[in-house]
């Protein structure tokens, strides 16, 4: 039975790349709706790979084998017949480096919607304002939406990228170290946005530090070399980790 609270259910997922790099081994995980789930651990642990499986961005990489199931709303998205484009509209992603497309800010925000066949000016304008407001960027850019997106500062660019995902009204938002290149003020703006957004969306965050993981997590999973070592609700994992390896990483004995 699928628990309705669980937006994403991962069953016995294994992944291997053809060059033998980073892989995943036997991952079992339930990601709840309307919460921030944090996936943390040292580099090469498989966190990004997991995100790229959830929106099938890994389809283009040299993947040798993928086994197991990934259920989103009860549907296994790894099956061959799945509409990948529709899946990516439902599962949005923000990357580590802000990637404004070489277009104006407005065109960046409407890009996904227009590709989805939405051309009504009123709907697009509404989506631009709503998504920028949600990403706490509207006041800063509302008067210059037609300027190139690359003219924004790094922190603004990353919030634009978040807004671009929000414009599509996805159900799940994945963020892969979204603040790794940002200053503390921009970082706290992004984190504050996420706290507001979690009431409407399922958020999966790969943080860039243990501190950020501890600040933001409603649920947290510790990944080490392709294995999910420990998964716990709340911030328990940071104060009373059950596994020795988690404890060593959280207190900073390695990492």
């Amino acid at each position, binding site marked *: 039975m699928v628990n309705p609270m669980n937006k994403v259910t991962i069953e016995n997922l294994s992944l291997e790349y053809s060059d033998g790099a980073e892989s995943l081994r036997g991952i079992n995980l339930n990601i709840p709706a309307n919460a921030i789930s944090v996936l943390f651990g040292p580099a090469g642990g498989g966190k990004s790979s997991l995100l790229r499986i959830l*929106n099938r*961005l890994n389809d*283009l990489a040299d993947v040798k084998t993928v086994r197991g199931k990934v259920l989103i709303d009860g549907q296994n998205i790894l099956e061959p017949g799945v509409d990948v*484009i*529709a899946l*990516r*509209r439902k599962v*949005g*992603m923000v*990357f580590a*480096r802000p*990637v404004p*497309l*070489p*277009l104006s800010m407005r065109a960046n925000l409407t*890009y*996904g919607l227009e*590709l*989805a066949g939405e051309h009504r000016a009123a709907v697009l304008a509404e989506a631009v304002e709503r998504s920028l407001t949600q990403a706490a960027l509207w006041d800063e850019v509302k008067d210059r939406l037609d300027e*190139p997106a*690359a*003219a924004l500062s790094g922190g603004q660019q990353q919030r634009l*990228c978040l807004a*671009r*995902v929000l414009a*599509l009204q996805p159900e799940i938002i994945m963020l892969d170290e979204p603040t790794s290149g940002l200053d503390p003020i921009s970082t706290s703006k992004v984190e504050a946005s996420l706290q507001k957004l979690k009431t409407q969306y399922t958020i999966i965050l790969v943080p860039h530090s243990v501190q950020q993981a501890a600040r933001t997590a409603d649920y947290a999973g510790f990944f080490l070399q392709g294995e999910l070592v420990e998964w716990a609700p709340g911030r328990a994992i940071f104060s009373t980790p059950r596994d020795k390896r988690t404890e060593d990483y959280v207190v900073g004995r390695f990492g």
Partner: protein
Amino acid sequence: MPQQTEQWREMLINWLIKISGYSAIVFVTLIFFFLIRESLPGFSPETFSRLAGSRWYPIEQYYGLAPLIAGSIMVTLGAALVAIPLGLGTAIFIAEIAPRWVREILKPLVEILAGLPSVVLGFLGILSLSPWVRETMNLPTGLTAFSGSLLLGMTSLPTIVSVAEDALDAVPRSYRDASLALGATELQTIFLVTLPAARSGVFTAVMLGLGRAIGETIMVMMVTGNAAMIPNSLFSPVRTMTATIAAEMGEVAKGSEHYHVLFLIGLTLFVISLLVNLTASSVIMRQQKRAERVLS
């Protein structure tokens, strides 16, 4: 003192670099003045009126430039029509669509093609392309502007493919990921994100390719039929400016009117390629300035 020799060496190297830098400018200027000196001063007022005519028949002192200019323009534009879509298509295929192993075969292959002497392509044109054109189009001769355009397109193709492919390849992987993650298909990503992001490199590729097409001489001489008349369609024989100089310079009497006119054609070619380059670099500069503003 060793410190003093060090200073001398620095100064010497500095000067050598400066001289080689300035010499490029000096040479181009000298060529320009040489072309002017050998053409314009030898002209009588009658020569100028003859240049405006519509016939090129030097033996009877018809020096109308129009058929030659028209021939060059027609063949070059025809080549552009062939080379730009085909070249960009190939570049997109190699950079974005082909699997890795296909790419590793195609890319060096294209670069080898770029080094193929055009006279070899001219052979191909005379032996197979022009008979085919004559038969399928039912023309009196297959040596036409059309054949010239096709082959000329082939000579500029490798340049366009190779430069455009590098430009596409330089677009960060993350742009494509971001676009795909927003629900774009691979083709939408190529045309809406990757190609616009690489546009200044792609533009350079086209300009370099066309630059090669304008200057190409021996091959167009072989396959365009060399009839100096104003062409009424792509399927009539033409003669280009470059081919005219190559064909007639060997037999002309030094200092004759014909001789000066040939130099004027050279000057015209020089000015045309100067204008093409100026346009290209001003477009690229404008984009760079925008890009700099955008990136700062």
